[in-house]
């Protein structure tokens, strides 16, 4: 029988970075209490730099963030700093499957199938990245099994938090680059190191725009939703608020 997931379309919802993270955690808490699994989408305006749960705060150059109008937020999930603004963020909250299927790697692989299936409908052939890259303060500068790559360059970066018997996985699909990147917002001992990090970041990442895929966030979210529905055999339940947003966006297009 198809699993029933609710879709939370927050593409048009204005929130601070902290509110976005609080909403993801609220979905996780609800699923932990027995609520239905959820798939949520949102974007970031103004841009925000999110830090991993345990990443040192002094990695961040707060003055540089302020000067560029970038919000700084702490994620509940692991990993390193990630600049949001040119991406679409998805969040999935599900009960943790028992046994091996509930392992960190198995969950990444299961949800990757949804992302890969959705991206394929846009003509993008993404794969799970199975090798660990060099550790960097910037999330997208290293490739791990939690990420999806195209031609060995990261297109989607994801992270998880496990609480009680539920899991939140959220991640960023790179759509386009902003005029600045993580390396402009993090501290480096020397400018040469910043240049090296930026070169590594540019070489190890790719955006939908660079792949020649012209898609707005709404269509991208819809493609990923269908990808999850197909690969995980889901019965999707749209919230009334989400229905209204989808209708409003379709009317504008």
């Amino acid at each position, binding site marked *: 029988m198809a699993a029933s997931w609710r879709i939370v379309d927050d593409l048009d919802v204005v929130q601070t970075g902290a509110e976005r993270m609080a909403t993801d955690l609220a979905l996780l808490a609800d699923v932990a209490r027995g609520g239905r699994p959820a798939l949520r989408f949102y974007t970031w305006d103004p841009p925000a730099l999110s830090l991993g*749960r345990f990443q040192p705060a002094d990695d961040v150059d707060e003055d540089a963030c302020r000067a560029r109008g970038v919000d700084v937020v702490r994620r509940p*999930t*692991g990993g390193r700093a990630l600049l949001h603004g040119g991406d679409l963020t998805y969040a999935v909250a599900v009960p943790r499957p028992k*046994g091996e299927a509930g*392992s*960190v790697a198995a969950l990444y692989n299961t949800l990757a199938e949804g992302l890969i299936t959705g991206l394929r409908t846009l003509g993008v052939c993404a794969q799970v990245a199975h090798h660990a890259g060099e550790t960097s303060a910037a999330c997208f500068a290293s490739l791990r*099994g939690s990420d999806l790559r195209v031609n060995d360059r990261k297109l989607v970066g*994801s*992270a998880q938090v496990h609480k009680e018997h539920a899991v939140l996985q959220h991640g960023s699909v790179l759509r386009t680059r902003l005029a600045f990147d993580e390396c402009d917002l993090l501290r480096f001992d020397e400018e040469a190191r910043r240049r090296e990090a930026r070169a590594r970041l540019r070489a190890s990442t790719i955006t939908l725009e660079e792949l020649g895929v012209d898609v707005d966030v709404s269509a991208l979210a819809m493609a990923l939703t269908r990808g999850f529905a197909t690969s995980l055999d889901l019965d999707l339940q749209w919230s009334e608020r989400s229905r209204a947003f989808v209708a409003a966006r379709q009317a504008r297009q």
Partner: protein
Amino acid sequence: MDFPSDLRYLPTHEWARVEGDRVTVGISDFAQDALGDIVYVELPALGRSVAANEVFCEVESTKSVSDIYAPVAGEIIEVNTELSDSPQKINDAPYGDGWICVIRAADLGEAQALLDADGYRKVVEEA
């Protein structure tokens, strides 16, 4: 998968070695395998009081953060500070050098009520 018979377990995959009122705590072989390579352990503070089933520690592996639960109530009287520099000890020896802390149990009855090895094995294998 290793399930030492001299330990007690929580269904959330923590183990407890009970010696008098000292309860040494760690995570099981199954748990470390499910987490993957552990890169960071947020250790509990020495002297902290914990309740049974309270989150007292968090670990990060493969960009994933997981809660660790206290098997018994009591005071944390020892912490394995070597995990700060070498969190992979949990992967290498979950029942040995990868121990997390020692709790002085407030109620030993709680420890006796934990799962034995066979009970925990069933939790893992029933999936």
